[in-house]
Structures are given as C-alpha cells and as structure tokens.
C-alpha cells in the first residue's frame, strides 16, 4: 500500500498515493497505518486527495486505523474527494473525524 509520510514538528502527514482504499487494500492499509502512526507525533493527518474510491471495507480500515492510535493521539482526514466524502456522510462517519478541506489549508491555519 503506497503511503508516504512527512513529519513537521507537530504533525504526521500521511499521503495515500493510491486511488482506491477498498476490500482488496483494506488489510494492507491498516497494517501500513499502524506502522506509521505507532511512534509518530500526537497529531496525524491522512491526506486522501488522491483517493477517488473508498468502499465500506476501506471505510472500516480508516476507522480501524484511528482505533489503533495511542491514547491522546489523533487522526484527522484531509482532501476528501466528492465520492469519498459522500461515503463518510452517508454512514455518518464524517462526524467521527475532523475533516480538513486540504493539507495546505491545515498547515496555513497552523502557522497563520
């Protein structure tokens, strides 16, 4: 699963470089996320701007990734494309995560 991570001094940004988080990718995604967040900073953000398809398995894997965090560690989402945003909205999982329009807006807010 192609996940790329960048760390600022406060935030771990994890970019998903694949277009689909689906049944086929769910377990690999969860495992990769655990490895990346295990020792990371308290604030993590998942950049989904390249992801155009998430099904219920993918949604479950994203939720599981959040549940894998340490106490006090947080996973936000950023850059949800329209179809992906819809899946979160329909299932009401959009209320479970803090969702940012984009990574760029997030980091601007942090320094502005």
């Amino acid at each position, binding site marked *: 699963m192609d996940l790329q991570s960048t760390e600022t001094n406060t935030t771990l940004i994890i970019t998903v470089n694949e277009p*689909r988080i*689906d*049944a*086929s990718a769910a377990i690999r995604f969860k495992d990769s996320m655990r490895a990346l967040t295990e020792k990371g900073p308290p604030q993590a953000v998942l950049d989904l701007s390249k992801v*155009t*398809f998430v*099904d*219920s*398995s993918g*949604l*479950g*894997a994203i*939720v*599981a990734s*959040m*549940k894998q965090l340490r106490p006090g560690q947080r996973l936000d989402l950023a850059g949800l494309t*329209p*179809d992906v945003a*819809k*899946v979160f909205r*329909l*299932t*009401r*999982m959009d*209320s*479970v995560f803090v969702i940012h329009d984009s990574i760029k807006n997030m980091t601007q807010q942090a320094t502005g």
Partner: protein
Amino acid sequence: MAHRFSLSETATESGVRSLLSQGRARLVAARVPDAWLGTIELVWAEALNNIAEHAYAGLEPGTVHIDAVIEGTCVSAIIRDRGKPLPGLTVPVAQLPVSNGPSESLPEGGFGWFLINDLCESVTYRRQNDENQLSLIIHPKEHTA
C-alpha cells in the same frame, strides 16, 4: 434506447476490482454522466464484496455475473453467483452501525448493506436453481450532490 452489458469474473478481491473497472468503462461508453459513476460503482462494489467474502466463503471462489441495463435515468443490474444463499433467503435489514460512542466502540463494518439499501431505488433477492440473484435498481440522479 437502452444500453446493456454483461460481465463475468471469478469472485475474488482482484476479480471484483476487475469487474468494477470493466463496468465503469461500459458505463462511460453508454454515456452515463460522470456524476453518477461513483454511486453506481459503490453499490456494485458492496454487492460484489459481499459475494466474494460471504457467498463463496469456505468454498472455491466461483464466478459472479453482472447483467446491467441503462435506460434513461435508471441503472439496473442483476448480480448472480452460485455461492451460499443469503441467510433467511432475504436481504438483511440494514441498520447503520452506531458511531456516536467512544472511539474503542466505533464500528469498522456493517456499512455495506446499509449503503446498498440507501442508494438503491429497490433491492430484490431471489434464490433460483442454486443461484443467488440480486437485483439492484439505482436512480443515480437522486444521489448526486
């Protein structure tokens, strides 16, 4: 004028991805608006994943077929497989898993049938001659943001 197509693949995770990809190409060729594709793909993905994960669970993965018809604003598909029948021979009552509790209790699954029922105009299941037949009618225009 109605457009029709039929696709078949083995019901594995990669077979499902292939079916969805082929299905998308056929929908585009049938001039289905881009704005509808996400809804259709999501519904079909959920149904196909169920077949791959449950209908053929413990069995050699068999074939799954999609017979689709696109007419006006209606996209219907019959998805057929020869795996195990749905429990109770009926479409599950799809409740949205609750997501307002503490993080440890957040649901990681159970969304599939909810999404299918929410996005389809109708969902019908029939078991005939050892075959599961799931009939899904979508009016995508009603679900585009």
